């Protein structure tokens, strides 16, 4: 599945939620289902800087594709991580870097989040995008 297909799948799924509580219940469900990362990746170095909630980030590169181990102490942020992993994990560095993550607006995450929460979301997206530089040839 490419980045666009994964985003369309998420948008279609979230279309069924017509109020914030149903939408956020889904985020909580996704957050609970996201497997925790190996504790060896939960280091100070892997914490995303200036993120209000503790969020650990680690990536690996295999066969020209980037894979993510991301975790957070917040269930809502874990739900968002699950969505970002679905869209971006296993994709090529250039595709990740150039991805237009329009699903974030389409499912109403940006408009519904407080500035602090939105900041955490964009810190995470920026970290994913800037991280791929080390894998680009």
């Amino acid at each position, binding site marked *: 599945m490419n980045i666009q297909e994964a985003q369309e799948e998420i948008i279609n799924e979230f279309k069924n939620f017509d109020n*914030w*509580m149903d939408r*956020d*219940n889904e985020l*909580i469900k996704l957050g609970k289902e996201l497997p925790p990362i190996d504790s060896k990746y939960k280091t100070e170095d892997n914490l995303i800087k200036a993120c*209000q*909630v*503790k969020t650990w980030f680690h990536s690996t590169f295999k066969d020209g594709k980037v894979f993510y181990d991301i975790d957070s*102490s*917040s*269930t*809502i*942020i874990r739900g968002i991580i699950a969505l970002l992993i679905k869209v971006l994990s296993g994709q090529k560095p250039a595709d990740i870097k150039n991805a237009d993550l329009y699903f974030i607006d389409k499912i109403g995450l940006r408009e519904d*989040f*407080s500035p*602090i*929460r939105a900041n955490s979301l964009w810190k995470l997206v920026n970290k994913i995008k800037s991280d791929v530089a080390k894998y680009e040839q």
Partner: protein
Amino acid sequence: MDYGTTKLIATDGLRLYGRAENKTCIFSFLLDNIHSYDVGMFLDKMSIAVRVGHHCTQPLWDHYKVEGSVRASLAFYNTFEEIDYFCEALKKIQKMFK
């Protein structure tokens, strides 16, 4: 403050931090294992304003080995009904995370 304390300590899964006799009317707490930012986000959506996180007292939260708390501050204009609404909102949030 007595009314709020009684109501809050009766809420299953709520840990209230700070029970000093002469404290001001603030309630610092954690709800189940839900992150304080998650609780704050949902209270905000239910029109309840609280502060979340470290409240600039990181060493204190390091001591308790938690990432921070939710903090509700009440003033002379808050009513008993608002405290009831606040406690009901907390129960709704708990239900969402169950």
